[in-house]
């Protein structure tokens, strides 16, 4: 048996909101069952420590993992603001445990490796998949995930996303058990008799002429066609927005228009959202952009976004091969949140229509998505809708 339920908490008191959401989530579980795992997505408008303390006060023995967001998603109320969404999972056939890797700022790869090592160490010798949430503002998301896959294997099913901070791009938080961390990666290992499926899709199309990445180091792109990298946004956004670009607001403004990276060795376009822009116009991403790759501005619209949601949901069902999903985690892109605006609920409605209205959904808007890619190698990407489903 695998069962899940959702709870949503809101209000001024962070502890109460957390406790309320957790109580609500646990009340939806089969009678007499306690939560084995809690997945928590909380707004940064809450006091993070009090929020997590509120959640754990209700279910102190459950494994807790989660992160702060750029907006929360749940099947009860769809896309919400300034809330905390808790998914409680209980199962007598799957086992859950948590792990953490710290100090992404100092050594991102080592942090990923540390998290993977702890996951493996606590696995009792068997781990079959993992959910992960990480910070991409303090270090390379690409390196952190590479650290994880170095230890777990390139094709190991790692799924998750980057934590958010309401589009401020300042500081994000990761939750593990009763603690709140910064600049870390948290993971939840799964083993036992269960099935998971994850699918990531984006509905963006290239617009305008292409540019070539002429200077790039690590996760920072310095130049495009010999000009400062941020010039691509300056040219497209126009004079009216130049001051915003230079006031450090570019990431929030550019989030709805990710850059499409076209490389010779990859037929599929990979999307990248800038998370930091310096005064000289160099842009930092969660993941590096290789030199000589072709860069184009990407754009989408609501209809295409909804179509993507439908395709992703159908693909998840296809991957589950007829099994009924018991819970869905949605790691959605902040780009899509900006694009959908007031119609953000519609994509969750579509997912529910296809997957089933009684399947609990919890999720959040993130700065990057991990896994669910079409290839085998685990990738970190932007602009995508990532669905993770668990079934018996």
């Amino acid at each position: 048996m695998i069962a899940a339920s959702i709870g949503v908490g809101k209000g001024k008191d962070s502890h109460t909101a957390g406790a309320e959401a957790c109580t609500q989530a646990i009340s939806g579980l089969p009678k007499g069952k306690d939560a084995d795992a809690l997945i928590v997505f909380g707004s940064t408008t809450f006091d993070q420590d009090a929020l997590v303390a509120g959640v754990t006060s209700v279910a102190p023995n459950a494994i807790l993992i989660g992160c702060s967001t750029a907006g929360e998603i749940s099947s009860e109320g769809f896309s919400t603001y300034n809330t905390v969404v808790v998914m409680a999972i209980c199962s007598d056939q799957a086992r859950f445990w948590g792990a953490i890797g710290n100090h992404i700022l100092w050594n991102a790869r080592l942090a990923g490796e540390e998290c993977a090592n702890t996951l493996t160490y606590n696995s009792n010798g068997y781990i079959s998949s993992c959910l992960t949430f990480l910070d991409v503002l303090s270090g390379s998301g690409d390196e952190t995930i590479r650290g994880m896959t170095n230890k777990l294997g390139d094709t190991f099913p790692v799924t998750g996303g980057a934590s958010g901070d309401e589009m401020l791009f300042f500081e994000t938080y990761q939750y593990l058990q009763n603690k709140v961390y910064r600049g870390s990666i948290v993971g939840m290992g799964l083993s036992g008799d269960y099935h998971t499926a994850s699918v990531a899709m984006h509905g963006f199309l290239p617009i305008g002429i292409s540019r070539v990445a002429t200077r790039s180091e690590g996760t920072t792109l310095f130049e495009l066609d010999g000009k400062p990298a941020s010039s691509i946004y300056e040219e497209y956004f126009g004079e009216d927005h130049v001051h915003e670009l230079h006031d450090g607001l570019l990431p929030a403004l550019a989030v709805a228009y990710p850059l499409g990276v076209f490389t010779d060795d990859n037929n599929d376009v990979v999307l990248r959202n800038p998370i930091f822009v310096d005064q000289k116009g160099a842009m930092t991403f969660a993941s590096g952009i290789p030199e000589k790759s072709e860069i184009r501005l990407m754009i989408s619209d609501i209809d295409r976004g909804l179509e993507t949601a439908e395709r992703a949901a159908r693909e998840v069902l296809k991957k589950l091969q007829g099994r009924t999903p018991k819970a869905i985690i949605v790691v959605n892109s902040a780009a899509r949140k900006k694009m959908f605006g007031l119609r953000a609920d519609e994509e969750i409605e579509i997912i529910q229509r296809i997957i089933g209205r009684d399947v609990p959904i919890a999720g959040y808007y993130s700065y990057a998505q991990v896994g669910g890619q079409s290839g085998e190698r685990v990738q970190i990407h932007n602009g995508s809708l990532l669905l993770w489903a668990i079934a018996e």
Partner: protein
Amino acid sequence: MQNELHGGTRLKSTSWIIDARWYYAPLAFFLGIIAREDGDQMRSLVILGGSLFFVLLCNIFFSIYIRKTEKEFPSDKSVGTINILQIALDLLFFFTVMMFTGGGVSSVGHSFFFIPIVVSMIVFGFRGAIIVAIVSGVAVLVSAFIHLGIFTDLISGANPFIISPRFSNTLLQSGVIFILYLLTGFFGGYISRLMRARDVLLHEQIASEEVHVVRLEELTKAFDQSAKLLVRRDLELTSANDKLIQLDKMKSEIISVVAHQLRTPLSAIKWSLKIILDKDAGELTPQQEELLKKSFTSNERMITLINDMLAVDKLESGKLKYDFVVVQFEDIVQDMIRSLLTLATKKNIRVEFSSPRELLPKIKVDVDKLRDVLQNLIDNAIKYTNPGGTVSVGATKENDEIHFWVKDDGIGIPADEQEKIFGRFFRASNASRFASDGSGLGLFITQSIVKRHGGKLWFESKIGSGSVFHVTLPLS
């Protein structure tokens, strides 16, 4: 044809010939040295060396001239002059070599004349090749005659050599060489003509492609410009949308606070009025009772409005939990009609339920929420129908859905307001006049619940004739 040749190609050919001369001129010189005549060896060496020096000097001049002028796109005329000079220089040099290597047909020098023929074929084409072939043939003949002493004999008036067998042999050999030159010039010129024709065709194609490329570049620039406009427009809309979201949030918060703050005093008023109306606080005059009853009804309306507002807040904040269970749909409809029958009877309105011929398949719904949907739709139909009217309710199975509808012959919805009917706090202008109560939230709540069930809600309406509201709910 000459004029049609692309300037760049002509210049490239000229350059190539100048470069080739660095090799073939010294080669001709060395062959000349090896095959030079017996006699005054020193004199021939000096003349051949001097000729080579002159040729190389001229070649340096050509080379400098071409390099200098190629950046300035030299005219066809100046390139043509250089080429004439080059060929003339070659002819002169090879004539000198031929003169000092036995002269005429017995010299190895005549084979060098194929070089200017080929060169002229490259730079001047058919006509140039033929002219140079004739000049070369004449040069061989002249050289042969000089060597045979025919010109000396002619000048001195000595016995003419013409009739001797040696003369006729020389003439014959010179003639053969002449014909070979002509044939080379002819076929070379022919090939050159073909090549030029192909060259011209290619250049025409390139020119046409260049036009396309220029057009494509212009289009790409225009496309990028349009893309910029599109992004800017999109950005403006996104910003406007962000502002709307903020306003919407603020509105929701205000409604939530106001509704919560109003509910408690309104409840207090309700119970106070009830106590007075129940005469627990003393007797009332009929006039007082009537006034208080009006106050009680108005207070009830306000409480209903506040409750609707709180329902919307719950709906939007995610506090509304759904509990899906399998039910028989018709049972809920009949229950609902039964509960609203008192209201209908009071207004003298007939409520008909055309139950399906066969039992509908069971459906998974949240019963309480679905009751709200049915209540809102049937209650609205009764509310906006004139006394004596009829409200028909029906349900049927269509494909994989249950289709439910509520039809009335009431006031209808004005066409220009139909788009807004599912919005929050919206009431049609004629509805407000017809019935003063109503929060304008009922249809918004109804639509949200139907959507949450994966269904659809829509209506058909004609002002003065009535409305039909349809709901479909998926069975799977």
